[in-house]
């Protein structure tokens, strides 16, 4: 990565639009990325350019992000990485632009819809309880991996037909992938993921199951069956989408809940508020940033973006935008209006959002039935990761034992 802030900005960028930010290593972001982005939103221009990481734009306001993410004429998804990866590996349907994109998206959406998620709910509940069983007697755990990751990731691995004994191995791959690494390593990890998926496809060809890869083998786009290369490409996306994002969203939510005893008591007494808790948490504690590459020159809010420029839409800042949500830093499950784009907006709105929301709701319900009161120990240290997929890598929790 280029870490040299003194690099001169391109000529089409105005001096007053330059704001120095390393999205991976900025100290404030690593202390608390949501507070960090909220502060940047208030002190930097709505659209600014940083010379770090190869040079790129950052957008911090909801409406500007929404207009970019809904504008496939000027903004392409062909390159999604900052700094530019120049990778030949394609993720379906995430790297495609409309109109080519829709058919591939539909083929996947057909299998990750509300009916499917509803049918999964009993399994979500029992899986949550199995994992709580593992930690409850100890009265403490590091939530991030033991629960925050283990719950959604094991559900996802079952759904994909991945053997659970590879949990630690796969988690290590995604953790490294979303951290600050060299481009060579980035591509190497992509190739490792793709080879894992390729092996799985070969297995399913020999012995089909009821997992998602087997279903995609039966799927077609505009009447043409998907090829193995296409299924591999979906698998690559699913691996990255399924093995980290919800994990982080759930851990962020529990970090907040651990620090708010009154909210714990209220949700435990009346679980019907839990969906609002989940939405409010998604609004305040987003995970993913969305990158676009400019495919046609455009002027937006006084910024001239040139073909080939990279643009990072800081989705976690969108929900914290005071122009969209009143008193945005207040966590309030009773807000009459709440706006966020934690799952993005536009053509690439997260397909897994229905599953992610259900996982967060069910886990919170089951946890509070058994551990209605918990906190972060006074010596507990939170370890954050910034970048394009943000995470809380350590969240120590404790509670009184003797629970159910």
């Amino acid at each position, binding site marked *: 990565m280029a870490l040299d802030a003194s690099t001169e900005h391109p000529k089409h960028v105005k001096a007053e639009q330059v704001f120095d930010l390393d999205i991976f290593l900025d100290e404030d972001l690593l202390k608390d990325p949501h507070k960090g982005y909220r502060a940047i939103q208030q002190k930097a221009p709505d659209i600014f350019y940083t010379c770090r990481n190869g040079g790129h734009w950052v957008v911090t306001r909801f409406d500007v992000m*929404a207009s970019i*993410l*809904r504008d496939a004429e000027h903004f392409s998804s062909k390159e999604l990485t900052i700094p530019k990866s120049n990778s030949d590996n394609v993720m379906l349907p995430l790297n495609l632009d*409309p*109109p080519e*994109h*829709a*058919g591939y*998206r*539909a*083929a996947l*959406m*057909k299998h990750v*819809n*509300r009916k499917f998620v509803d049918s999964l709910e009993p399994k979500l509940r029992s899986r949550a309880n199995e994992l709580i069983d593992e930690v409850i007697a100890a009265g403490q755990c590091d939530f991030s991996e033991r629960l925050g990751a283990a719950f959604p990731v094991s559900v996802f691995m079952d759904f994909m037909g991945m053997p659970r004994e590879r949990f630690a191995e796969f988690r290590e791959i995604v953790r490294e992938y979303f951290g600050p690494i060299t481009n060579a390593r980035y591509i190497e990890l992509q190739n490792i993921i793709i080879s894992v998926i390729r092996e799985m496809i070969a297995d399913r060809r020999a012995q089909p199951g009821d997992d998602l890869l087997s279903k995609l083998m039966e799927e077609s786009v*505009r009447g043409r069956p998907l090829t193995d290369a296409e299924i591999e490409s979906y698998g690559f996306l699913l691996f990255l989408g399924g093995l980290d994002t919800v994990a982080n969203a759930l851990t962020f939510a529990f970090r907040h809940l651990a620090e708010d005893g009154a909210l714990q008591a209220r949700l435990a007494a009346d679980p019907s508020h839990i969906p609002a808790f989940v*939405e409010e948490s998604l609004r305040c504690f987003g995970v993913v940033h969305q990158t676009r590459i400019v495919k046609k020159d455009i002027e937006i809010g006084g910024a001239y973006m040139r073909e080939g420029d990279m643009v990072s839409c800081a989705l976690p800042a969108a929900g914290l935008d005071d122009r969209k949500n009143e008193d945005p830093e207040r966590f309030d499950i009773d807000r009459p209006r709440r706006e966020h*784009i934690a*799952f993005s*907006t*536009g*053509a*690439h*709105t997260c397909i897994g*959002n*229905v599953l992610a*929301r259900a996982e967060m709701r069910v886990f919170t319900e089951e946890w509070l039935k058994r551990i209605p009161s918990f906190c972060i120990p006074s010596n507990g240290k939170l370890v954050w990761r910034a970048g394009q997929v943000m995470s809380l890598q350590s969240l120590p929790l404790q509670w009184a034992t003797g629970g159910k």
Partner: protein
Amino acid sequence: MRVNVTLRSGEQRTVEARAGQSLKAALMEGGAEEINALTSCGGCCSCGTCHVYIDERDVARMPAMSSQEDDLLYVRDDRRTNSRLACSVPLSESMDGMRVTIAPEW
């Protein structure tokens, strides 16, 4: 111009609309907010949630469907020949008085 809408509850309403708006935008402005799902893509023909049935008597005066809309409707197992995604139906004066039913939540 006006659009007549049947909500999921069966309640019928008439909403004011403007030519050039999408059918989805008109329904939302007219208070039929159930057309805008929590999981909506924001009206970009990418999520399939703003599914409506056009009254058979009005189908002929609807604008043509793009391949993108057709692709997306593929995910709906409740698709019928008169199915449309409301975000992808631009309104024009010639559609004044059209009748539309919001499809079940999905």
